């Protein structure tokens, strides 16, 4: 009988710059179904945070309700966490971020939590460009309630009981682009070589960063006829590019064929190195991205990789011109600067 993870780790585990080996970024042992795509995404988050030398106490995990929203328990045990109400994770994230802008806000949601009950919250958090990572673990079904079709189930996809979904699906990535999100990516839980650099880039992006990850539900949506099964997704993947995240200090050594590669500079000097695979696609041009996604959809393919990114983003704090310090770092003197200052302000209003 298990559910018990041994305490032993590989004795030669390397350490990152902070002196932590990867086990410091682990969470509890997952209680999701064996083979759940969500666990792979959790492992990707652990790997990305370890490699980026993130201090766990500088990160807050936020989630709503659902299988996906359970996952923050399974990574980064040493970080902050808030498991909120169904579909309301963006509100909690907004509040937390406005209070303390110094943390990395890592939101995890599912297709139900985002595309159904949380749709209103989702579109508004995009519109406000809250500085956070928003990952949707998208399996096209309601796993916790035994696999009913969700709003992201594709029209024509067959569920485990053999029923065909008659409704159009909500394409979260297209929606995000439509609403003006400035970092939009799509990936597959079974492809960590693509997913991990995307998570790293999303963490670096100084505004709202959205990653829609197709994550098969092995128990309820991995059957023949499902468009979100491991086999189907693997057969219909169409990556926009290969992607490497290059921290600023590292010299770029790989040389791709001219015209096929592109280095996107992030705000802090790090790079996203893309080797383009898709034609007529420019990750900095919203129109070409919308086109590429439309074409892929018509061909029945799933476009993955970085879809759109704008390095010049203006997040909610900048828009609202809030204080550039976290509220918890403001002292009484900062908050009550005294009657002299009050006089100055009052005189300005006269």
């Amino acid at each position, binding site marked *: *009988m*298990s559910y018990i993870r*041994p305490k*032993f*780790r590989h004795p030669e585990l390397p350490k990152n710059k902070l002196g932590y080996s990867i086990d410091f970024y682990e969470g509890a042992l997952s209680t999701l179904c064996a083979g759940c795509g969500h666990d792979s995404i959790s492992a990707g988050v652990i790997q990305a945070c370890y490699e980026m030398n993130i201090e766990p106490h500088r990160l807050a995990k936020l989630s709503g309700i659902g299988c996906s929203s359970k996952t923050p328990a399974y990574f980064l045990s040493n970080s902050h966490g808030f498991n909120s109400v169904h579909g309301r994770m963006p509100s909690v994230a907004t509040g937390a971020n406005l209070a303390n802008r110094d943390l990395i806000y890592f939101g995890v949601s599912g297709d139900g939590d985002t595309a159904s009950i949380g749709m209103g919250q989702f579109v508004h958090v995009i519109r406000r460009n809250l500085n956070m990572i928003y990952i949707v673990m998208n399996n096209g079904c309601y796993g916790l309630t035994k696999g009913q079709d969700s709003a992201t189930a594709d029209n024509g996809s067959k569920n485990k009981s053999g029923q065909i979904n008659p409704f159009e699906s909500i394409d979260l990535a297209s929606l995000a682009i439509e609403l003006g999100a400035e970092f939009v990516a799509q990936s597959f839980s079974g492809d960590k070589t693509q997913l991990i650099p995307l998570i790293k880039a999303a963490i670096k992006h100084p505004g709202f960063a959205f990653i829609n990850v197709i994550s098969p539900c*092995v128990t309820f949506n991995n059957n023949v006829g499902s468009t979100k099964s491991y086999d189907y997704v693997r057969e219909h993947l169409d990556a926009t590019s290969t992607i490497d995240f290059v921290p600023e200090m590292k010299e770029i050594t790989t040389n791709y064929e001219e015209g096929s590669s592109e280095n996107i500079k992030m705000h802090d000097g790090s790079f996203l190195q893309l080797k383009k695979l898709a034609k007529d696609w420019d990750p900095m041009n919203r129109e070409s991205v919308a086109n590429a996604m439309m074409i892929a959809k018509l061909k029945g393919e799933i476009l993955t990789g970085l879809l759109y990114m704008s390095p010049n983003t203006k997040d909610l704090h900048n828009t609202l011109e809030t204080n550039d310090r976290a509220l918890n770092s403001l002292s009484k003197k900062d908050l009550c600067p005294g009657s002299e200052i009050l006089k100055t302000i009052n005189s300005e209003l006269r």
Partner: protein
Amino acid sequence: MKSTDIKDPEYFHKVVDCQYACPAHTPVPHYIRLIAEGKYSEAYMVNWDSNVFPGVLGRTCDRPCEPACRRGRLDSEEPVAICRLKRVAADNKDDVKTLMPQAPFKPNGKKIALIGAGPASLTVARDLAPEGYEIHLFDEQKLGGGFMRSQIPSFRLPESVLNEEVNFILDLGIHTHFNKYVESLKEVLSKDYDAVFIGTGAPRGRDLPDMLGRWEAAANIHIGINWLGSVAFEHTSKIGKNVIILGGGNTAMDCCRTARRLGGENVKVIVRSPFSEMKASPWEKEDAQHEDIPIIDNHVPKSFVVENGVLKGMMFDRVFALIDENGKRKLVSKGEDEVFYAADDVLIAIGQENSFPWIERDLGVEFDNWEMPVVNEKTFASTHPKVFFGGDSAWGPKNVITAVAHGHQAAISIDLMCKQKNLLLERPSPFVNLVSQKMGIHEWSYDSEVVNDKRYLVPQADKKLTLSNRKKEVELGFDPFHGFKEAERCLNCDMQTVFSETKCIECDACMDVCPTACISFVDNEDEESDLRAKLKVPANNLSQDLYVSNTLPTKRVMVKDENVCLHCGLCAERCPTSAWDIQKFFYSVTKAGKGCH
């Protein structure tokens, strides 16, 4: 890299590090689980079948299994106390005699002579007697056991334990010829034996014949193994107050501890090499030091100091170890004055060698330039068709468990020879079994939880008591409770992780959950070294194999580095398609007469 052929039993055998390292390939995790279940008699019989002397070995084995134990490769962990667990089975067993073959056996008309009654010969006897062979066992001593009796002191191995296990064998209807020194192989061969097995050990202790004063003080200078034998057979019962033991092997440790019990108050071990390079097992050195015996290293003996025909002590040159340009270790004199150590008696325990004065050289038994018999490494046959060697007599001094392993193989050869079969081509394959242990989604038929307990110490009797009585056993052994606790430390390495690529959907769950990062899904490489370098944690322990699958649909392969796999079963628990399964691997060396014919 080519995919791994798990149909070859040696692949999984090698994963069971302890069993693989054991010369007799005793199925260690199997009997450790039986001990944990309190099935001591069954555990004993698993051992008895494989290593013949569980009670003896549970106290005295050189334990090649323990340095191999996977647990020792984990962070700040020590190996499972495999040897002392074996003793738990021996100490707590019920009447096991009824579980053994019962004499008399139907004779098959063949007659075998075994020369020397040590562990190798006794193993041959045990394996062949139930097959109907008429076994004649010869030894110069009055009792069987060979060096297990003459060299291992009673405070490490009580006579009762040895007698019981020797008698299990003698009771199989063995014809014993004790107090009979065989003087001529020619004479033995002239009798109507179908085969002769020579298990006479390495009976000659090395001496320092040319050292100044050696023969003048001969009365107080003893050869270690002869002296131990003379103590065991109660010809010697005391020694001087100041004793020097020369040598750094296990015999030296037994000599010094015995000397402490025979009146030696000021006993010292003085050894040429540095302490860390001594041949003695670390635990034997510890036990000696625990009995207030200093071990003085880097001292090369130069001469015996004799006054008026009486031994006064020895002179030593102080040296240090130097690695020369060829990487060889040399002992170089420090150039200081020689140093004197007083001694009433000196025991020389600097090694032992083979000696075959009783084998005529014109019989067709060939000897090499070093006066060692020419013996086939697989069949243990000499160049004479009827003569076989085993134990220390074959290739020089080793240990009990090696002698047992030799005995099994020689018995197979003798059996094949008597049945006019080819000794090499018709040797029986090992008995192998591989069975799934799945009981439920998170349930295995073994205790898959990895406990965090540190190695338990075996309690010892009070030093005052043991030093005053040569026969009082020092180690008390684990009680059943601590035996259980120690048994639970075993990682169950025979519970194999078996992968079937046709079922794998490449969800990465096994790779993500594995606590020790053993599993990687990567693109294959032509060179093993390239593949080893690109795994989740590079596989730097080259003595441990990689388990490589066939190519998967995404063109990758599954690679498992066996090095620090905890056999916790999480990979199989997290696998949605049962592509991973935990299967119990049982491997047993086939004994004489038990193979398919």
